[in-house]
């Protein structure tokens, strides 16, 4: 945990604050002000990313700090979900925006890093980016799953799908990205370490999270909307395994493995 007393840090904290304010304002039933704050947060996030770009003089997607910084510009993804997928939950998206910026603001170092040899590969960015985007979709799906369990439905005039259908649709969006992340990681492992599968804890957790969503897709194919609660629990379980994959293995150092440098 570190607080960044820099312009970069300030921009990140301002974005987080704007997203959180937007979240609270939306919950207090002021959707217009909430949306304005969300847009404001997005604008600061873009400045923050641009500032980083100017500062390091290359596309800032070299390390996890920069990837999370990029993910902080979540607004277009929410817009896409709402307009194209007809899945919406503005308040949740704002909170997710703040959550993904948290690691950039407080966990990862912002020093421009010199990458160790194994990380110098064209696969680094696509592998990490595919995973991060899939995680955002899965987070949104999990939120919808919770809405389903809590019986929260969109208002009739909003032209949005029910939470159960929303969960399914967003998982269908995120699953190919999850698959891509896993396969790119495996291909990279082959180039860097000589094996496409090393049975390393991080790999096994990521396989487990992929399998949980695979199970979800098959279960939903078998039963459709007959057991909406089980469908939702399945999605939530997937997210739980993703969180373990992402945080537990990296941060707890309980398992030491090949991926431990990724912290």
């Amino acid at each position, binding site marked *: 945990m570190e607080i960044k007393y820099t312009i970069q840090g300030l921009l990140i904290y301002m974005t987080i604050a704007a997203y959180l304010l937007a979240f609270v304002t939306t919950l207090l039933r002021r959707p217009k002000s909430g949306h304005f704050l969300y847009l404001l947060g997005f604008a600061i996030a873009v400045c923050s990313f641009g500032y980083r770009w100017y500062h390091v003089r290359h596309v800032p997607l070299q390390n996890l700090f920069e990837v999370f910084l990029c993910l902080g510009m979540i607004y277009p993804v929410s817009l896409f979900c709402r307009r194209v997928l007809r899945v919406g939950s503005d308040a949740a998206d704002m909170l997710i925006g703040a959550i993904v910026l948290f690691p950039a603001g407080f966990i990862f170092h912002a020093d421009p890093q*010199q990458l*160790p*040899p*194994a990380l*110098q*590969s064209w696969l680094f960015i696509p592998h990490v980016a595919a995973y991060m985007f899939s995680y955002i979709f899965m987070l949104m799906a999990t939120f919808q799953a919770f809405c389903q369990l809590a019986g929260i439905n969109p208002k009739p005039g909003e032209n949005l799908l029910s939470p159960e259908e929303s969960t399914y649709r967003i998982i*269908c*969006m995120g*699953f*190919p990205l999850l*698959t*891509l992340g896993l*396969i790119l990681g*495996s*291909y*990279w492992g*082959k*180039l*860097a*370490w*000589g*094996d*496409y*599968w*090393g*049975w*390393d*804890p*991080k790999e*096994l*957790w990521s*396989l*487990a999270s992929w*399998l*949980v969503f*695979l*199970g979800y897709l*098959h*279960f939903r*194919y*078998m039963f459709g909307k007959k057991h909406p609660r089980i469908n939702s629990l399945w999605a939530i379980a997937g997210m739980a*395994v993703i969180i373990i994959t992402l945080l537990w*293995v990296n941060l707890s150092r309980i*398992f*030491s*493995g*090949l991926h431990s440098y990724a912290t």
Partner: protein
Amino acid sequence: MHKYRRTIMWLGLLLIIVLTVLSIYGAFIGAERAEHFFNQPPLAVFWMALATLLIVGIAAFRRLVRIPGLLLMHAGCVLILAGGMWGSHAGHNLQKKLFRIDKIHSGRMAIYEGSSDNRVALDGTREQKELPFSLKLKDFRIEYYQPVYLRIQTHQGRQWKIPVEVGKEFPLGDEAGTIKIVKAYENFKVGMEEGKSAPFDDPSPGSNPALEVQITEPNGQAATQYVFERFPGHSHNQGKFSLSYHRVISDYISELQIVEGDKIVAEKDIEVNHPLRFGGYHFYQSSYDDKAGQYTVLQVVSDTGLYVVYAGYWMLCIGVIWHLWLRHIFKRIQSKYK
């Protein structure tokens, strides 16, 4: 759904759940034990069952054949499983029994600079085996991120980070004076010259990187110090500064040649993330002689089954993306222009 189709589907779901649980179990026991665990005979049965069920599923559900995305995904998974099993340790042993293909599964080889070798120490045993060709190491080198920096710190906590440029003088402010790097050594040694000890850069094998630094105080008094990369803190300083010299490795490179008989048939500089492929094997930069930089250690891995797995990867990726994304996008575009 027909009863037997439903059974297949349930079995598929069951195997997916079992594999999830096994993966989580594997994550708890660490990579080495997990590798052993997943390669045991009972697990081989599990892998076979999963692959068989996928094939049975493809045969039983017409939609899995008719819908291209679904076919690609499920058949892709069959290929991944088949390629993985064929390329495993057990797969290699089986090929030896059935087809007398005697290939090394994986191992390591150490090669000295200027010499060639074909002996591979097999992983997990004490055995050695020979490759049908030799590898010659022309040169092994380590590259560092440039510029390399010398860090200077006063006891009051002031810090400087100056690039290592021999001969250039850097001001450290009015109170501290100036600093100059006089010489950079790769292999610092001390010899005797005219009855006095004198440092020199030893060209013979060995590595002891060091910097000779001259600090000139504001009053004009100059002092020489040596800073060693391998012995941080071991610099003869007069108490005012502490100096440190640390280079960040950017790459390990082995310049290799493949020799068959006495002909050179291939040549490649391998580095991390850029292996050499030859004769059914992949060669990776794995380790090196960290004392003198005289030999390199390569990891040797058989490529049996690998391209089957890669084909499966492509099919799985294209299948999932087609079935869950592109199909819908095309449908939307079509309905727009109808």
